[in-house]
């Protein structure tokens, strides 16, 4: 399988502590994988480094044929805006904007016009089960609904890779599972690869491939039968 996003020899340290101590990882187009590990194992650092949010101290990251670790911050921002989508633990929605505006925001920032961005946002909100709640603010939505808005936002601009950092961390089990189903469905629909960081083994079990990380190193990688 050809890899869409790959990291080679990734090292990241904070002072004397190593968050990543030489990680190699490949993610194929349309693949869904979970990065699991205990707190402080380096899984979030790996996600941030792969997404270009953090710069690795050593190593190379390639998206398709492009070395993204050598790009400027501006270019990496542009890449994150156009090629990647993000879902964070608590949604990280803009509190002042409505659900519809939150979803439209990445499109607007990418230069789409208002009507197109808003209609795409409405479309995606409907697909994640939030039709009729387009004008609600994040504070007026439940935790699960807010995460579904975040999922719609991450997918609306049709990214190549979606990064989800503990997307169910603030949700109950049932809602968490439903959220992962929604996320995987959305990724499948657009053909995006999905990288989920989680410490929840049940969530990891829902995902075809699991990469376990401990002390900044990959402990093992397993593909579900």
């Amino acid at each position: 399988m050809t890899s869409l996003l790959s990291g080679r020899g990734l090292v990241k340290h904070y002072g004397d502590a190593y968050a990543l101590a030489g990680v190699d990882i490949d993610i194929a187009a349309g693949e869904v994988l979970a990065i699991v590990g205990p707190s402080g194992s380096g899984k979030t650092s790996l996600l941030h480094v792969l997404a270009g949010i953090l710069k690795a101290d050593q190593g190379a990251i390639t998206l398709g044929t492009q070395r993204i670790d050598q790009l400027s911050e501006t270019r990496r921002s542009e890449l994150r805006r156009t090629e990647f989508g993000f879902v964070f633990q608590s949604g990280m929605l803009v509190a002042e904007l409505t659900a519809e505006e939150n979803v439209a925001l990445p499109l607007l920032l990418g230069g789409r016009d208002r009507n197109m961005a808003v209609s795409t946002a409405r479309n995606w909100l409907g697909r994640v089960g939030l039709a009729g709640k387009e004008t609600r603010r994040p504070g007026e939505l439940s935790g699960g609904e807010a995460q579904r808005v975040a999922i719609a936002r991450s997918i609306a601009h049709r990214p190549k890779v979606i990064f989800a950092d503990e997307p169910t961390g603030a949700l109950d089990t049932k809602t968490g599972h439903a959220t992962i189903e929604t996320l995987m469905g959305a990724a499948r629909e657009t053909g995006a690869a999905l990288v989920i960081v989680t410490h929840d083994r049940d969530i990891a079990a829902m995902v075809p491939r699991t990469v376990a990380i401990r002390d900044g190193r990959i402990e093992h990688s397993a593909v579900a039968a």
Partner: protein
Amino acid sequence: MNSFQLAVRVLRVDRRTQVSTTLTALGVAVATGLVLLLVSLPFATQARAERVLWQDPHPTYADMSDSAGTDPDATLEIVTSTDEVDGKVITRVDVAPLSAAAAKDLPPGIDRIPGPGEMLQSPELAQLASSRPAAELADRFGAKPVGLLGEGALMFPEQLVALVGHTPDTMPANKLQQARLGDGSAEPDELLSLLAGVGVVVLLVPSLVLVASASRLTAARRERRLAALRLAGATPMQVTAMVAAETGLAAVAGAVVGVAMSPVLHAAATWVSWDGGTWLAHDFVLPWYVTVLVALVVPVLVVGAAVFGLRRVVNTPLMAVGGHTRKPLSVVRLAAVPVAVGFFFWMLMTVNQTDSMLPVLVALGLLMWSPTVVGPWVTSALGGVFTKVWRKPAVLLAGRRLRDDPKSAYRASAGVVLAVFAGSMALTLMPSLEGESGYRSPYRESVLYLASDEEQAPAVVEAANEKLARYGLAERAATVGFVSVRQGSTDLTGYVVSCANAQVLLPVRVSCVDHPAIYAPSGSSVEVYSYDGEDERQEPLAGKPVASRDLPMVLIDPSLVPAGASLSGVDVAMPASNASRETARTAFLAASGGAQVISKEMMLGDQNVQLADLRRVTVIGLVTASLLGGLSAAISTAGSVLDRRKTFGALMAAGTPVRTLARALRAEAALPALVATIGAGALGTVVGVGLFGLVSKSAPVLSPWLAAPVVLGALVALLAASVCTPALNRVRAEPLADE
């Protein structure tokens, strides 16, 4: 762990609390220092007035020149006059002891009363006199300098003063008798006291806004922390005590710094000229109880405001933890400005009845507070418009933020708004007052006048002309008499002077005919009033007047004044060019023995000094208020980034460029500021017009410069808003890091 220990613990470990505490302390220090300076101004003017009590006569009789004999309490005779050199005022005090007791208990700075023909002078006058020919200055006093006046006898260090000694028979005619030199009581300068009151309002409010902005830096985090404590079982009183301890630490530290830096502010203030000169350092020394009062009241106000701001956490901690939906602002808020304006003008109209400026100052304070009521509503409305018409994400983000939290958004511009209000008010007053300067002056430019009487005037003219000739000047003095006249039903002043002399000595434009004549506003006959004991007579002047429409008076050739008509006064007048002015003055004063010489330039000079004082104080106040306002706006903007650090971080992680967020934040800060500053500019102009109405019935002058504070305010707000870029760059460095 008690509340204070908890506050110290938080301060030691939390960097943002440290920044907030430092800025709060800075705001309190600035507020304390400014209040201490402003409240010291009335004391400073009183200290000045006490030093120069000796320069003003405080007679035992109203006018001894009309009385017979000597008051038994009087020990000396005194006359005070003002003169000028190079446009600087010279105060001249002529004094003649009546008994040896005059030399006892002299005011500070005067070691003795100069003997006849001797004078004491201020150091600045001595230096000026020695630096130019005697004919231009020294000869005016007709006395030999025998010593210097000390600092304690001067209004300000550079004051020009001469204390000239006489015997009673050489004293000028308008002498007064006095018990001792320096009698009487001193009062603070009313204008500066009024300005200090306005200054407290104009500068204290931006200082407190600065404190509020600084404490908002940690507000969101502190609310969460305190709400968590409430949920963990802390009582409202315990939570309140924690906030009081946290804010109290900063406020007390700030007040101490404010008191400590007040001598520096006072020292700086000594360089600011007021009423013609600078100050002595100890003028600004405040009574200790005033210092203690200010140092206590400012921190108490700050702590009180912080505790008041906590009521939401205290009452409903869950709301503070979980967030809440804000209630829309009531449209009733819009009424605040018209109500405050109405109240202000009502107070202005009743100020003459109450004879106190306090109600006007209270109304002014309310007026300045009213934009903070209306501002958030306008901000919210503006946000509503943005959220409807947006095309770019920056406008959408700004609009939603303004709509969602208009109070916070407006708070960023509140300080600038006050500065604009004060500036517009001042810029309405300044040109209007300048327009009043020299209005309808009875004096002609470059002419010196000396009030005399019918008997003495010829001798003064003769002596002055003899001096002028001796100094080699071509100018000559002449008399101008005054009579009361009536033309038709209008009472006018008749100037007894030849037409040729009137063209040179009076502020008139008249075409002279080739024979002695009467010149009047119309050609109808003129009657002259004369008084004979208790009876008043009207006697027609011979001949028909030459009509001269522009004349505001009647000119009568001396040869046409009826023999029975008595003059109500006589001036001796003398033209003086720029080149000859000082020498001509010397000749005039030497000839008159130190009587008061006046000129249009001197009259304008007094007004100009006052206007320059007002302008200087206004500029200092405006700049200070703008700086404080700009600093508040900058802190508020930085605070708004910190409050939303996680959201901005997530947006940046998802690829949102800093410039897009910065544009949104700038729009969020600058747009309400722009609207608010335009409103504040209009309000300031209205108040300026009202205040001008207190001192003049003329129409106020509204210049295009009124736009300057609005532009300045918007610019300060925009510059302050630009601090969002470095704040966002800090977020960008670690967008998903915990706070």
